[in-house]
């Protein structure tokens, strides 16, 4: 379908480098972890996870995101989606562990809220570069426990989410979800693999998307050829064993880019 035209109703500066754009259209059918293709007309169309049913949270990294940072309330975006496979939803009573880093918190916030709403017990490990960049602290503050880390030690524990994870007995949890920079997730993956917890882990990945709908193959990962846009972006840990995950990704031309 043609992109849906949405009007930006509210712009929230979440941190120095991230902004949330609320719009006048709720993607009520969207599952936590699904993404939309955001069309900044005249510039580019880029994938963004829904951080709310009616919002995306954007980190400025290049052309299109920079253009977005110039948008005002009342401006328009074109949106296609929701697309892809979201997180497997936890059930009441499930013990849930969430590990998020940086803007990855945006992708996981809806899941955290859902988990709490159905009465699973959620523990969160949340990391950021520094205190200012700590995202969605309020939405990710659960009953089960909250562990915060900053790379620079500007607040809370100095270090990485993996430091906390290494001290955690993941066998206690029924479901583990993670989203963040791939290098962070690679370390998380290694620890969980070591603890035999991969099977109950879901990771949300990023790759370069062209079509976004599972046809062109731009986002296929080496290993089993899984399409991040359609078979993912959320994958079970076991699907990523012996894949390119944590090693390299591909650019627009299909060329490999090492992490």
């Amino acid at each position, binding site marked *: 379908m043609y992109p849906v035209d949405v009007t930006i109703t509210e712009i929230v500066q979440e941190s120095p480098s991230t902004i949330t754009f609320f719009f006048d259209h709720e993607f009520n059918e969207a599952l936590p972890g699904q993404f939309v293709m955001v069309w900044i007309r005249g510039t580019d169309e880029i994938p963004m996870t829904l951080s709310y049913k009616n919002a995306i949270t954007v980190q400025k990294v290049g052309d299109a995101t920079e253009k977005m940072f110039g948008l005002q309330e009342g401006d328009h975006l074109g949106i296609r989606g929701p697309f892809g496979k979201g997180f497997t939803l936890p059930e009441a009573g499930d013990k849930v562990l969430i590990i998020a880093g940086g803007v990855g918190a945006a992708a996981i916030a809806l899941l955290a809220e859902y988990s709490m709403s159905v009465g699973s017990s959620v523990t969160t490990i949340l990391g950021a570069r520094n205190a200012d960049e700590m995202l969605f602290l309020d939405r990710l503050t659960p009953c089960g426990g909250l562990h915060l880390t900053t790379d620079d030690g500007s607040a809370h524990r100095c270090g990485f989410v993996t430091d906390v994870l290494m001290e955690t007995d993941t066998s206690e949890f029924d479901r583990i979800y993670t989203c963040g920079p791939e290098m962070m997730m690679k370390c998380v993956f290694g620890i969980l693999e070591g603890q035999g917890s991969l099977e109950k882990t879901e990771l949300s990945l990023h790759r370069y998307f062209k079509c976004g709908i599972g046809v062109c*193959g731009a986002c296929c990962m080496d290993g089993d050829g899984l399409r991040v846009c359609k078979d993912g972006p959320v994958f079970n840990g076991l699907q990523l064993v012996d894949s390119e995950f944590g090693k390299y990704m591909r650019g627009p031309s299909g060329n490999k880019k090492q992490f």
Partner: protein
Amino acid sequence: MIEITGLKLRNPTILAAGIMGTTAASLVRVAKVGAGAVVTKSIGPQPKEGHKNPSMVNLGYGFLNAMGLPNPSFPDFSAELETAGSKTDVPVIASIFGGNADEFTQVAEGLADAGPDAFELNVSCPHAQGYGASIGCDTCAVEEITAAVTDMTDLPVWVKLTPNVTDIVSIGEAAQRGGADAIVAINTVRGMAIDIHSGYPVLGNRFGGLSGSAVKPVAIKCVYDLYAALEIPVIGVGGISCWEDAVEMMMAGASAVQIGSAVYEGVDVFRSIADGIDNFLADRDLRFDDIIGLAHRRI
């Protein structure tokens, strides 16, 4: 089992060029889930990032895309091609493009060592150097390019045609004169969509190519006409998403079919189409040869 230009296919469904064909891993995956053969993304002489997004939209009745032939170029793609070939038993056909005959042979030579089972020449790329709008509209260019590649290799050479011409048969005949072993028809149909909220064309490239259901009748007609006019086999592609579509295409004259956009519904489309054709034939006690071109014999 069917044989086409010397290649043995366990079933007549082939992954179309440009669909999940940029990496060995995804080519192997598609072969594993049922395709009888796979065609790679079209590979050219230089790396290309392709057009800006949006590069593909689902219109419901079809898809519009303008990828802009993104590809890592032949030196980078060789390893993928080799891996693909070594990890699957099904034929792997290298789709290649260039701006002129020299570039085509350069790419074919560059990929030859990686051991493709055949080449498919994508002579439908717009803006080719020295050939006006599109080489695929020019019978001389198509003949020359085909002859250049067939001279250079002993592998089967398939030539893939654009439907955006006044007379596709004359282009097919040119490819046949150039020594093509088979014709593949059709590439996408020129099309465009505009976002009425902003006035912007939806595709980053402004216009693009239509594929999926909407183009099936166009493809059927092209295959029908090519089958009537040519001696070499025709491989049908365009809008095939179920076994009935595949049988229809074969009755128009296709020896095998390629499937592109329909992977949108799931990669198991190859298996389900192959099984569907098998059942259709078995129920009626027919062989492939009985249905290929059948419409021509029904007067």
